[in-house]
């Protein structure tokens, strides 16, 4: 008994001590040509995995640089960006007029760089054999704030007379803003009786467990759960790497951005980071489940930087 207690205490002591030792080791990192300083980034949780991947690779080359990446959401990120608390803001929708006005008030000029595409994907339960395709008009009919649709039959008369359960991302997400803007014409306009979650995995679980569910979220979440969900084509186009990239999956393909404070760009490390971001986005974007831009667009973004 005593031996076990001793062992447990050793493990506990290790958890406490290891990070402290690492902290001490870290101080004697390599010096030389590598960049130093801190690049502050916050914003969209959709763009986060891309920025995290870029930060990981960039830090591997420049071990003395610090790049904390926050996840306050696109709106929360812009609030910090507009008062100069961050150098770069991840965004899954363009900056709103009032956010841009606030930045201007605080003397902050910024540049928008497009870094990837995402396809907002409409999905239904695996047992749902009837919904294969929806048109933009039908999507609007289903999701409009004054929607009369409660059963599948209300969409197309040949579909079953069962009540539909609606799932959608939470109101703070850029996905929600983009979808409502594109489909219902006004950001935030949507029917009120849907189950919302900021966590897309919760939506996946909900739709996978309910025969009469329909919902939407980022393409990466469908790709990881193809065995649990059925994909719905929009206007006869299924979202895929190619259809999202060439824009034929419309209107639910959307660009993802980083907004960079122009004053921060004067700092060597921020400039180097943004350059690295655009140059390496093509490969890194794919690794984390998003769709890269066509090559020419990345060249355009690089020219924008110069």
């Amino acid at each position, binding site marked *: 008994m005593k031996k076990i207690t001793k062992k447990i205490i050793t493990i506990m002591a290790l958890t406490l001590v290891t990070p402290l030792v690492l902290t001490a080791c870290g101080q004697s990192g390599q010096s030389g040509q590598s960049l130093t300083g801190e690049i502050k980034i*916050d914003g969209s949780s959709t763009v986060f995995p891309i920025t995290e991947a870029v930060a990981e690779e960039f830090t591997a080359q420049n071990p003395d640089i610090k790049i904390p*990446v926050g996840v306050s959401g696109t709106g929360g990120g812009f609030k910090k960006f507009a008062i100069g608390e961050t150098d770069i803001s991840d965004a899954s929708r363009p900056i709103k007029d009032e956010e841009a006005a606030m930045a201007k008030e605080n003397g902050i000029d910024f540049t928008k760089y497009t870094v990837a595409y995402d396809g907002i994907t409409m999905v239904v339960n695996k047992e749902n054999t009837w919904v294969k395709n929806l048109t933009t008009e039908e999507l609007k009919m289903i999701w409009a704030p004054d929607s009369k649709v409660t059963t599948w039959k209300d969409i197309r008369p040949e579909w079953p007379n069962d009540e539909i359960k609606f799932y959608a991302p939470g109101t703070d997400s850029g996905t929600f803003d983009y979808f409502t803007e594109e489909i219902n014409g006004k950001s935030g306009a949507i029917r009120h009786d849907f189950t919302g979650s900021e966590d897309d*995995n919760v939506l996946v679980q909900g739709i996978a467990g309910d025969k009469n569910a329909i919902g939407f979220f980022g393409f990466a979440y469908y790709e990881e759960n193809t065995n649990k969900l059925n994909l719905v084509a929009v206007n006869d186009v299924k979202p895929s790497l190619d259809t999202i990239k060439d824009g034929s999956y419309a209107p639910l393909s959307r660009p993802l951005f980083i907004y960079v404070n122009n004053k921060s760009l004067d700092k060597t490390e921020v400039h180097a980071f943004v350059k690295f971001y655009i140059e390496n986005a093509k490969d890194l974007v794919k690794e984390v489940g998003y769709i890269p831009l066509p090559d020419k667009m990345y060249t355009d973004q690089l020219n924008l930087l110069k």
Partner: protein
Amino acid sequence: MEKKLIRRRRLKNALFQGALISIIVFSILILLLLLYQVFKVGLSHLSLSFITSMPSRFAARAGIASALAGSIWTISLTILFAIPLGVGTALYLEEYANKKSWFTKILEINIANLAGVPAIVYGMLGLAVFVRFLNFQRSILSGALTLALLILPVIIVASQEALKSVPSTLKEGSYALGVSKWQTITGVVLPYSLPGILTGSILAVSRAMGEAAPLIMIGAAGYIGFMPKSPLDSFTVLPIQIFNWTSRPQAEFQDIAATGIIVLLVLLLTMNAIAIVLRNKYQNRMD
């Protein structure tokens, strides 16, 4: 007639006892189920490299070093701020303040109310006061101060209860020997009430260790690729890192999230074990 009455009472007694036991068994079963789930998924990924690596976009390479260090930094500073302040406040309220004055009553009501304020509200307060007004930025210091505010009411209330439990005979005995008030507090009141104070503090600190929402609010990061080296560094903590992993589309990230939970549990148990050892030491001395 009387025997029947006694038998009925015994039956009631047995029923109630049975109900209580089944409630305990039920809650422990749920806990065990949760632990089983976490360990089943997470244990296979637990290794030294998981504890010493930085987060990564590849689940297989990802580690928890920066979040673990961030958690230890934050919680140590939180303890440093919250416990002396909390115990001091409780001492003032119990030993010095005039219990009948309206001022003391308002103080006590406010403290009790603060204990029920949602954590996210403390996050907003921390953002406005520590991050922006005092300009501590999105640092460990801001985070620790915010968490200290969050758990302060719990520590005060628990310490007050512990101080109330000191028998007045002990205090009066001390005064009768001509010992001053301050010496009575440090020599009699505090040692006697320390086990109770520690119990309350353990609960409060454990809560602070599991908080993510107020720290996200003050701008703690989701990705930190370096070890925090001073209280003014940017940081992340275990609950934020775990939450971040669970919300990824790839199933592997959900697996290492479970591993992260194991690390958080071990850290929690370690902190609690230290407090319990301290408590037992003082309890034995009093007996």
